[in-house]
């Protein structure tokens, strides 16, 4: 994770900006994937998913499905296994 991203995450947590946290954690997940850090990517994406769930953000379903495809989450309702 870059220093900028880390600072942005800290700011969003401190300000309870949950919508922003979704994008920031997903960005962290993508960066981790690019660096072949699968476990770190899943960790960050899980956080993105949880905050999406919390605020009812539509990205939640996609994030859940990505985690599901990696065997890390249940299949979203209405999606094929």
């Amino acid at each position, binding site marked *: 994770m870059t220093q900028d991203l880390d600072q942005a995450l800290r700011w969003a947590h401190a300000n309870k900006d949950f919508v922003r946290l979704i994008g920031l954690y997903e960005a962290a997940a993508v960066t981790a994937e690019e660096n072949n850090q699968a476990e770190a990517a*899943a*960790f960050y*994406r899980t956080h993105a998913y949880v905050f999406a769930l*919390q605020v009812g953000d539509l990205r939640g379903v996609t994030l859940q499905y990505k985690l599901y495809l990696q065997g*890390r989450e249940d299949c979203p309702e209405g999606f094929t296994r």
Partner: protein
Amino acid sequence: MQELNHDDLDAVLTDVSTARGLPNAHYISQDRFEAERQSVLFNNWSGVGFGKDVPEPGDAKPIDFLGIPLLLIRDRDGEIGVFQNTCRHRGMILIDAPRKIEGALRCPYHSWCYSLKGALKATPHVGGPGQNTHAAVRKSELGLIRVRHYIFQDVVFVNISGEAPEFEKVHANLMQRWAEFSQPIYHGGAESSFKLEVKTNWKLAVENYCESYHLPWIHPGLNSYSRLEDHYNIEQPGEYSGQGTEVYRQLTSGDGLVFPDFEGLDPKWDSAAEYIAVYPNVLLGAHRDHVFAIVLEPMALDRTVEHVELYYTKPEATEAAYANIRGENAVLWKGVFEEDIFVVEGMQRGRHGVMFDGGRFSPAMDGPTHMFHHWVAFQLKQGMQEAL
């Protein structure tokens, strides 16, 4: 420690003409308070809040009911649910202040997430970092604990024990009695909501509410038009009791405005009104043009909060054109209920008189109050038998 015994209660569980009231200990002993907590309040249908507290989908309000953390939620379908406000993971309180839930309910500890219907939706990292499932943690078995509830006259009743008969069965007679009032009601807004903090045991507020005997002495302002002989007792053994008046006078504002009536009421309600204590802790009032509900929150042995809410019959009665008369009505009722405070606090202090034997009842005037005592004593006795 004063043991709860049958003899105390047998003196209550007899005819009103010979009965004594519940002994002092039922008002001043922590042991009795705790016995009543279970046998009287948890084993029956108790009022804990109002539907108007969660007016919109996603609204959630935590409620502490005698130490049990509850959560009142209105889901996306507009249905109200009552849950234990405790995460199924490590028992963390989920919500500690009223708020709007945009999506899911996220536990602030390890972020387990629940839908507004209580289903467990996410268990992040439960199988290790980034692994959000585990064979041993079945989401379908770990939804929020639902508490049985029923909404009547916008009051949220709960049965903590889960073992009481259905609300509609327990209160079939009351629902039948007030079937005409089974119509939509509309909360009057901020000025129609107030609470009174009273230094008394919650039962004394019920007892005072049940009877009209005190009206000419405590509420002399009513005497000019609502005399004692204009009232009648309401007694439904084992369910509710109260009083009715045959001379209800509709409030009229200075400019001649009155509240709209409920639809299709029998003409008797033109001048009648009824005030009923729904056992154990809810006090209701019904009139042609408005209703009110009071939930008595037992804060401690000798401390009660009376939550008072006023409702009207049509949406227009909640609009600005009726603001003044709504305010007048709220002031009127608040004044009446405040006049009762010195009585219920005085009776509480009087219970420390060690030679008071529970007191006698007027067979003519105190039937509704004795009926409540009788019901409480019966619940306690039943609780004692179940504990054996």
